[in-house]
């Protein structure tokens, strides 16, 4: 039965009047105590975690200890912690949301042995606040009272230690109850955890920074900054218009001197200020940090300054530069801070020499934040030398008016994995996970030199004759806790950027290339999906999702796997895993591996065939591989050779993604992250249809199935390039595939057009995509939901997820854009220092894929380059080809038809270029000072260029059919970038001018303009 109490709160309203509010407060006899020693477990109705039973004592931190030493309480070594509700509320009300969420996550974390006891709702523990009693005193009294109750509740069987910083409380309560000890936190650490060095260091760091803060507030001399005005004065000042409220924005390039205050709506309405207010110098900024909500007083007009226009290095301090500043603008100084936006900052320690120059105050060290806009932070630590090469996270504690720099203490360093302390599988995890190390042959297939292996495969025959196919994905979420620093950083990066010669990782390399990467021969955690397939029909009978431990036996690369698949066993020497084996075991193991690869390919073919039946598209994107030699010189450009193994791996991944998508959608219909690929707009296909007509093919674009079929039929037996080109045009017409949250779309819109699947997501590359991390967490939650377990980890709500999807989509697009530009750059660099006249490589075979009024667009299969070639040069001369088919420039005219273009010279010679004709082109580089260099193509002959290269293309042509589907959507997005801009403009015009959707005169004129090739160097990108 509940008991009702009333709490009286006195609040102050905005007008300054006191308001008396009566709130109800209900007490109950039984509140879950979460202790295994509880005498009436039924009455306490425990759900969730219990304290472990092997501790020697329970520790109850005081509200002050929870506020100040939370980082130490986070240590996993400290066990049996009981957080009282009173203490948690103190954190909630007096500290920021960030710290409170940290506490909440700690309480939810099953690994950490701590619980929350709702003492204020327990009828024996609740103490009303007495008249005139200070909040702090009451909180301490409540916590102590609850501690005593708890001790008696456990029938005096477990001693309880209450840690507090309040000397008075120690005096008062220290010997009041037997079995409940009250000591200081420092004392507690010394007595109970003498060996926990890290905790001691952290504690010292916090203590010291606090002591200094107190000392400094006593010293009144030597003030560096004027004091902030009290809040009432500020509020009154804002009301009267004397002060202005705004958000401080520090100029990134002149962080020491310039900052601007952006006005906030309400305050700007009476003052007639339109621009931002300049805050000049650190003194005027008065201890506010980028992002704070500050109150500003305007300076008299004669003191106004202009913003500096000249460039300057960030390091130079407050020195006035000789450059004349621009026109004076409103200038002010900060008189108070309404809301502090202090976060945790990543900082770097100064080098040794600098530390010595700061020597006078050896224990305090000035560290430099990564962000230019944040001032240097002073922290107290004895470990400056050992932390030299680390980047640490620092939290700002205070900034007194007597100090030039803010004080802070450091929080954590990045996880380190050194050879001295190798990472091991922990026995706890071993119990929770399914162990596949002995039972399954697991291997990975990746490009050569790949470090971040996130997917591995396995296949085996079960006892009942059925097959078991397994896809094992790196368990990144095990290492990256939600809302940890790594997680937040990864979320902002969203994806790993692969450029032609380097990559920028999403996760720190300790994880991406080591702990998470499923390398050969080492134990790793994985998330696995295993299907049981029928032995004959390969129909899926059962599916299992779960966490596993695997040991990848082989780390193969695509080419080797393909050779093995083709039965060419000579590549064995290239596989390091086989090197140290004797002949016999080698033979046996090889057979096993070859069987597995063969079987996988078989399964993949079946799965693919089924998807093809539904209309999956096979598209074409040109991808070029840049080969670098040791000195980082560009060695060669090689178009990616599609192999059947590519398709096998991709198919398994698509299958895994598809099944995971189904699973998470079923479990979380409103907050699952899926990937959609909307059907394309029909009008984009017109170019494709026109081109195909030239060769006599008909392309039916009504659905993905008809498109796939007609693309398959559009095959010229003499020229495989035609089919590739048509496919790449189809690719360009596609829309972008996007991530979305299932709560924000109708179910019909989930469909993936390119893969012809009703639900699809990204699950298989958590090391390099953040979306996969989110999906992993969803899947784990879905599994625990199935088992009726409590869902750990906070999942995103639909709204947050939608926001996140938008962010990831943007980052992905940016990544693809930069990848494309990087490839273009390398293409240019490759040709840059080669003399086009002499170098053999600069002459190549090209195919015409589009015709314009004064030139043609060419595709060069050898290098995967697309570009324009003019038939009429700037002097008005046109191209002509003599009997030896070499071209020269002569006066004449051009005539353009639907599928061909004819160049007629004045002396009657004429040459015609048809669509899909092969010509010989010379590739050169057009240098540009303001823009990037571009590739320039010149037709030097209207005959195909015959070199062994063409053979290579023919050879690979049968394989072209099995182009990687995995890459399809990627290249779609890539190709789509240019297209999309155009579409947007057209759609905007529809909206703005209500244009008719039909063929208006305007679009006709636009098209004509399009047809003419303008001589702007980068205008032929479509």
């Amino acid at each position, binding site marked *: 039965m509940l008991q009702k109490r009333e709490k009286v709160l006195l609040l102050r309203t905005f007008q300054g009047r006191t308001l008396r509010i009566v709130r109800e407060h209900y007490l*109950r006899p039984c509140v879950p105590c979460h202790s295994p020693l509880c005498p009436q477990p039924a009455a306490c109705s425990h759900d969730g975690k219990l304290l472990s039973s092997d501790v020697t004592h329970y520790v109850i931190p005081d509200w002050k200890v929870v506020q100040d030493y939370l980082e130490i309480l986070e240590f996993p070594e400290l066990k049996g912690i009981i957080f009282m509700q009173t203490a948690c509320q103190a954190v909630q009300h007096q500290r920021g949301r960030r710290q409170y969420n940290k506490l909440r996550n700690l309480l939810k974390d099953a690994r950490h042995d701590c619980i929350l006891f*709702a003492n204020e709702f327990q009828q024996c523990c609740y103490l009303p606040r007495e008249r005139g009693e200070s909040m702090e005193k009451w909180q301490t009294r409540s916590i102590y009272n609850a501690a005593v109750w708890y001790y008696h509740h456990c029938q005096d069987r477990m001693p309880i230690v209450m840690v507090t910083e309040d000397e008075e409380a120690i005096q008062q309560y220290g010997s009041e109850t037997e079995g409940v000890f009250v000591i200081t936190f420092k004392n507690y650490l010394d007595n109970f955890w003498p060996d926990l060095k890290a905790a001691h260091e952290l504690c010292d760091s916090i203590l010291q920074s606090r002591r200094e803060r107190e000392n400094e507030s006593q010293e009144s001399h030597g003030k560096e900054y004027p004091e902030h005005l009290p809040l009432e004065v500020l509020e009154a000042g804002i009301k009267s218009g004397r002060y202005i409220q705004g958000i401080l924005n520090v100029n990134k390039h002149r962080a020491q001197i310039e900052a601007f205050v952006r006005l906030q709506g309400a305050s700007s309405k009476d003052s007639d200020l339109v621009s931002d207010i300049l805050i000049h110098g650190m003194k005027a900024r008065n201890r506010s940090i980028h992002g704070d909500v500050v109150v500003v007083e305007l300076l008299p007009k004669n003191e106004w300054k202009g913003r500096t226009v000249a460039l300057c290095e960030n390091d130079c301090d407050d020195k006035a530069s000789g450059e004349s500043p621009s026109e004076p603008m409103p200038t002010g100084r900060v008189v108070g801070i309404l809301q502090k936006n202090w976060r945790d900052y990543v900082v770097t320690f100064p080098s040794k020499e600098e530390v010595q120059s700061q020597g006078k105050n050896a224990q305090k060290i000035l560290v430099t934040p990564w962000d230019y806009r944040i001032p240097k932070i002073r922290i107290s630590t004895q470990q400056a030398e050992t932390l030299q090469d680390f980047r640490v996270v620092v939290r700002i504690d205070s900034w007194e008016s007597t100090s030039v720099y803010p004080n802070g203490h450091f929080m954590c360093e990045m996880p380190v994995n050194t050879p001295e302390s190798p990472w091991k599988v922990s026995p706890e995890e071993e119990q929770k996970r399914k162990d596949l190390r002995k039972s399954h042959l697991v291997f990975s297939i990746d490009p050569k030199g790949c470090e971040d292996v996130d997917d591995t495969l396995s296949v085996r025959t079960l006892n009942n004759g059925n097959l078991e196919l397994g896809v094992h994905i790196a368990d990144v979420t095990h290492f990256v806790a939600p809302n940890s620093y790594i997680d937040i950083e990864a979320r902002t990066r969203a994806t790993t950027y692969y450029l032609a010669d380097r990559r920028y990782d999403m996760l720190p390399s300790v994880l991406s290339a080591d702990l998470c990467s499923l390398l050969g021969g080492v134990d790793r955690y994985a998330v696995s999906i295993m299907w049981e397939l029928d032995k004959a029909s390969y129909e899926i009978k059962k599916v299992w999702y779960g966490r596993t431990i695997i040991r990848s036996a082989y780390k193969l690369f695509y080419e080797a796997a393909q050779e093995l698949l083709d039965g060419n066993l000579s590549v064995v020497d290239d596989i390091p895993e086989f090197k140290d084996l004797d002949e016999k075991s080698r033979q046996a193991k090889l057979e096993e591996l070859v069987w597995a690869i063969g079987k996988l390919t078989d399964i993949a073919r079946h799965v693919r065939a089924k998807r093809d039946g539904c209309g999956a598209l096979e598209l074409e994107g040109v991808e070029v591989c840049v080969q670098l030699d040791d000195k980082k010189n560009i060695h060669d450009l090689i178009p990616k050779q599609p192999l059947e193994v590519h398709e096998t791996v991709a198919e398994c991944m698509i299958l895994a993604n598809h099944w995971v998508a189904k699973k998470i959608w079923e479990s979380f219909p409103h907050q699952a992250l899926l990937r959609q690929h909307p059907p394309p707009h029909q009008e984009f296909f017109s170019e494709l249809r026109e081109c195909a007509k030239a060769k006599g093919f008909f392309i039916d674009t009504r659905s993905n199935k008809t498109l796939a079929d007609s693309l398959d039929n559009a095959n010229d037996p003499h020229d495989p390039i035609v089919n590739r080109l048509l496919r790449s045009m189809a690719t360009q017409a596609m829309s972008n595939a996007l991530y979305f949250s299932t709560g924000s779309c109708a179910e019909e819109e989930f469909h993936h057009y390119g893969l012809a699947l009703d639900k699809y997501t990204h699950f298989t590359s958590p090391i390099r995509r953040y979306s996969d991390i989110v999906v992993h967490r969803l899947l784990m939650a879905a599994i625990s939901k199935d088992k009726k377990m409590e869902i750990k980890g906070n999942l995103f709500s639909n709204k947050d997820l939608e926001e996140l999807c938008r962010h990831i989509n943007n980052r992905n697009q940016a990544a693809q854009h930069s990848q494309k530009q990087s490839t273009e750059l390398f293409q240019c660099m490759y040709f840059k220092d080669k003399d086009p006249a002499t170098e053999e490589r600069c002459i190549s075979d090209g195919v015409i894929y589009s015709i314009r009024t004064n030139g043609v667009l060419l595709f060069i299969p050898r290098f995967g380059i697309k570009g324009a070639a003019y038939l009429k040069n700037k002097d008005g001369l046109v191209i002509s080809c003599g009997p030896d088919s070499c071209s020269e420039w002569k006066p004449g005219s051009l005539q353009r038809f639907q599928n061909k273009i004819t160049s007629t010279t004045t002396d009657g010679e004429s040459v015609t270029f048809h669509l899909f004709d092969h010509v010989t082109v010379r590739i050169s580089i057009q240098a540009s000072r303001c823009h990037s260099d571009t590739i320039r193509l010149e037709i030097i002959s209207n005959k195909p260029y015959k070199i062994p290269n063409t053979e290579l293309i023919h050879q690979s042509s049968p394989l072209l059919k099995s182009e990687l589907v995995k890459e399809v959507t990627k290249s779609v997005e890539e190709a789509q970038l240019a297209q999309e801009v155009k579409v947007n403009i057209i759609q905007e015009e529809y909206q703005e001018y209500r244009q008719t959707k039909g063929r208006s005169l305007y679009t006709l004129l636009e098209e004509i303009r399009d047809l003419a090739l303008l001589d702007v160097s980068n205008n032929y990108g479509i």
Partner: protein
Amino acid sequence: MAGLELLSDQGYRVDGRRAGELRKIQARMGVFAQADGSAYIEQGNTKALAVVYGPHEIRGSRARALPDRALVNCQYSSATFSTGERKRRPHGDRKSCEMGLQLRQTFEAAILTQLHPRSQIDIYVLQADGGTYAACVNAATLAVLDAGIPMRDFVCACSAGFVDGTALADLSHVEEAAGGPQLALALLPASGQIALLEMDARLHEDHLERVLEAAAQAARDVHTLLDRVVRQHVREASILLGD
């Protein structure tokens, strides 16, 4: 300072209740001698007083009389001292008018109006913290019962809200002020019929059923309590009458 947490991770609300628990309800019938029926109810800190007059002949314009049933006339007013900021006038503002209209609809559905054609029943409600509508309905039910006017059933009302995927029954003022969706439900508990259902915030369709169920369960709990109050009252009255 972090924001107010309406529902903690341990499942407690701000005032210490769990999601489905009601506030403390205390009620008394027959508080005024002059009126035909009267009742006083406390739901947590919300206090409501209801008086009923009638059935009597139509006062004022005769044209308002209905040929086949009784006219139910409801007026709601809240004391000027009942809110944190003092109110200007006790009744006649739009909010009170709306509340009066809703009460009228509720009781037209519950009172067997066809038994008293051409007559009028007046229900006046005086009110003080969250869940005003529910408290008014519950008070008025008791008052109507006290007046001896035949009804189909008790009308029991309760509000419910929705926070972080959990439905909360019987919202307090703090929870109402937080701005989440709030649903008011008046139920005839015996038949399970709904006399009035009102919600003016956005709530996803999939959650509606759960919130509705929470409100209905709370209304059934209210019914048990009111029933107990009525029985108690009848017992006391019969003792006084010397039966």
